[in-house]
């Protein structure tokens, strides 16, 4: 049944947000829920006006090429409803709901999240589904009743041009790069090999993947170098303490041995004592990047997971909008009210009382700012019906917030210098003298305390041992999702809102894998080819420049038509260069892929003998015969000599099956059209009656 006009039409970003908006705006906090083609639509009454609030589900429209030919460059596009280009998209009913409501709408208010994406979502619905070109804009940072009402009464007369233009520009640029390079790479491969495989690499994905592959290349050629450390332990007032030698690393064995020899009487003299108390201030308020890092550190949640959980908390109106760069919390947020409300939760109650009892309370802030939102903070709304992950993240956010109001902690650091003959050693102790904010932030702040007993200058100290230890330098550490995100921030590629998603795409496209991120053979192959024939897609420079351009558009609210013309021109030139190089790129891609298929390590399973090595198919370098051997053969300490012979013809592939007789891995053996799944052991009882190669499976 249609809704009778005239009404104000509100565009929300998601159904859950629509419900909160409607409840807050309705005079009696009881909006009427109607369904249009299954889409929840809310009708609120306010000041004698009807406000109809309709949700989107993120983007309802998508870019699509104007031309149908499968070639490049593609420089012309238009917006179409997503369900038209992608049959899996479930957005048709939402599109229909908006269309059906446009006629009787007297005014439009965009109520999407206040940032670039929100602006773009609202604008596209306004222009292409509602057929209008003017809308008012509500801007809010939390979905609390207070903020929604304030945003309604202070709503601006138009959309935010800076956000809108920079958001649109990002869509155009990413779409242009994505479609053109995906086509260019796939066609390059097809023209030389007649094989079709979609190979796509986005504008920000390229340099991100490049960073992973470059690091792996470094790890692959890493040679550990020996060094020595001096390890020692002293006894002060009958307690044992670790003692640090003046040089942390020694590069020669001889030098290390000489030091140990010089100190063999194990007696030293206290030559200096120093103690200082330093204040330690609380960490700044959370912006998205900091929250993602801290959440990874304590809960091991990936950045994209943290963002999802934070969004859920935002939609429940328990925290403010999480897509923010800001480390600022202005007093206008009403901290006293927020604190008072948080204090009603028993876990935080006593902390809040302490904070509110102080005459002055002002949160500590960081340096970074954001055009639209303050730092992430709790709203004070009771956290009801949170799942366990949401509870954890909520606790972290609340405690971080409370810590901002705490006094600085005071930490005492004490050092005792001990000389053994001419060698200097040091005992270090640290102690929290005053807890301050740390009390509120526990258990997310932890310090290993150790207090050193008082000792007089020139007194004698006995060591329990002074020894040298051989060690080796380690290869650089692989990225995890959190450190890869840091790397992207450092390189200034992507934005707070997109970085986590880009990492996720690299995983889903099969370019990277693992929690200690490694490139897959495919990822390595693609980067290898681009590095030697077309590095611009792997280096950060071009991507970073585009990011700067987009930032400027936001700040200056500039028109993007001219910028787009010049971006398209650059892209056309780059693609021309690609085209000239197409054969080389194609050949090299093809060779890399072939090699990859050949070298895909044929792992058969774990070795049941040594339980450490992997069983793998290898070819004898002398006889050329293949067999299964344990990878721990080369490990001197294990030297596992397990081998299993293999038939000399046909192809052998691993399976995930285990032999029911002896638990050994089974392989698939294919010759011509015959296929057998068999145990790798020659002596296996399963082979007793099928010797001779009877068909099975």
């Amino acid at each position, binding site marked *: 049944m249609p809704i009778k006009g005239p009404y104000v039409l509100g565009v929300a970003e998601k159904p859950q947000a629509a419900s909160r908006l409607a409840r807050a705006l309705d005079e009696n906090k009881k909006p009427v829920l109607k369904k249009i083609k299954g889409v929840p639509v809310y009708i609120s009454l306010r000041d004698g006006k009807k406000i109809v609030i309709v949700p989107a589900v993120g983007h309802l429209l998508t870019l699509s090429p104007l031309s149908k030919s499968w070639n490049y460059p593609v420089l012309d596009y238009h917006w179409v409803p997503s369900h038209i280009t992608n049959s899996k998209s479930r957005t048709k009913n939402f599109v229909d709901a908006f269309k059906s409501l446009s006629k009787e709408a007297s005014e439009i208010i965009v109520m999407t999240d206040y940032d670039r994406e929100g602006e773009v979502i609202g604008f596209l619905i306004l222009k292409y589904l509602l057929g209008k070109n003017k809308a008012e804009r509500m801007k809010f940072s939390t979905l609390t009743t207070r903020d929604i009402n304030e945003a309604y009464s202070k709503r601006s007369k138009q959309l935010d041009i800076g956000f809108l233009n920079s958001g649109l520009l990002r869509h155009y640029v990413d779409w242009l790069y994505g479609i053109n390079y995906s086509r260019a790479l796939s066609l390059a491969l097809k023209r030389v090999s007649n094989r079709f495989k979609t190979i796509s690499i986005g504008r920000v994905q390229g340099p991100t993947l490049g960073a992973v592959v470059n690091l792996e290349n470094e790890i*692959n*050629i*890493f*040679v550990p170098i*020996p060094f020595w450390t001096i390890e020692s332990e002293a006894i002060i007032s009958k307690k044992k303490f670790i003692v640090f030698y003046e040089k942390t690393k020694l590069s020669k064995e001889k030098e290390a041995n000489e030091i140990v020899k010089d100190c063999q009487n194990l007696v030293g003299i206290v030559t200096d004592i120093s103690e200082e108390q330093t204040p330690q201030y609380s960490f700044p308020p959370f912006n998205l990047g900091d929250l993602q890092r801290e959440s990874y550190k304590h809960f091991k949640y990936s950045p994209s997971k943290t963002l999802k959980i934070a969004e859920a908390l935002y939609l429940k109106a328990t925290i403010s909008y999480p897509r923010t760069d800001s480390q600022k919390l202005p007093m206008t947020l009403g901290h006293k009210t927020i604190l008072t409300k948080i204090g009603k939760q028993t876990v935080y109650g006593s902390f809040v009382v302490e904070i509110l009892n102080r005459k002055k309370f002002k949160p500590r802030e960081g340096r970074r700012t954001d055009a639209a939102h303050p730092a992430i903070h709790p709203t004070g709304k009771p956290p009801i019906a949170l799942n366990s992950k949401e509870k954890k993240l909520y606790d972290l956010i609340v405690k971080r917030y409370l810590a901002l109001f705490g006094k600085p902690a005071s930490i005492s650091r004490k050092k005792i210098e001990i000389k053994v003959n001419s060698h200097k050693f040091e005992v270090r102790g640290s102690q929290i003298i005053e807890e301050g904010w740390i009390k509120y932030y526990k258990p997310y702040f932890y310090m290993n305390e150790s207090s050193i007993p008082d000792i007089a200058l020139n007194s004698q100290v006995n060591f329990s041992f002074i020894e040298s230890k051989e060690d080796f330098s380690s290869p650089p550490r692989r990225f995890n999702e959190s450190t890869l995100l840091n790397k992207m921030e450092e390189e200034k590629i992507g934005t707070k809102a997109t970085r986590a998603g880009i990492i996720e795409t690299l995983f889903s496209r099969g370019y990277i894998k693992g929690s200690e991120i490694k490139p897959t053979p495919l990822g390595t192959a693609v980067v290898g080819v681009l590095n030697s024939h077309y590095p611009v897609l792997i280096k950060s420079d071009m991507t970073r420049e585009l990011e700067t351009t987009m930032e400027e558009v936001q700040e200056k609210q500039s028109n993007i038509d001219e910028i787009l013309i010049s971006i398209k021109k650059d892209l056309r030139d780059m693609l021309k260069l690609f085209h000239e190089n197409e054969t080389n790129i194609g050949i090299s891609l093809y060779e890399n892929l072939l090699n990859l298929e050949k070298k895909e390590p044929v792992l058969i399973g774990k070795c049941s003998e040594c339980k450490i090595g992997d069983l793998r198919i290898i070819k004898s370098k002398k006889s050329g015969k293949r067999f299964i051997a344990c990878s721990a053969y080369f490990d001197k300490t294990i030297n596992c000599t397990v081998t299993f012979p293999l038939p000399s013809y046909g192809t052998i592939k691993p399976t995930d099956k285990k032999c029911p007789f002896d638990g050994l891995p089974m392989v698939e053996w294919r010759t011509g059209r015959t296929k057998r799944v068999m145990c790798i052991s020659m002596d296996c009882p399963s082979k007793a009656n099928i010797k001779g190669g009877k068909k099975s499976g």
Partner: protein
Amino acid sequence: MDDIKCKICQDKIDKSSGKFCFNHKLAKTKLQNGYELWLKAYDSLPYDDFLQRLLDLGDLVGAFVKDLAEFELYFQETK
């Protein structure tokens, strides 16, 4: 045939090395530089001992370097 493929991985050889592919050539250079540093650290150390001790370090050693050390230790006829 033997001349155009890497002795270790059967990849195309790198023109400037004559024996190994690009990656294994790079590993060879790193291995040689590494040996010099090990020599300085221990004063004396036969090359084979260096290779063996390197292989004992397991995952600390880069995969291409490990390939090369295995190759030189077990399959190299002339040194």
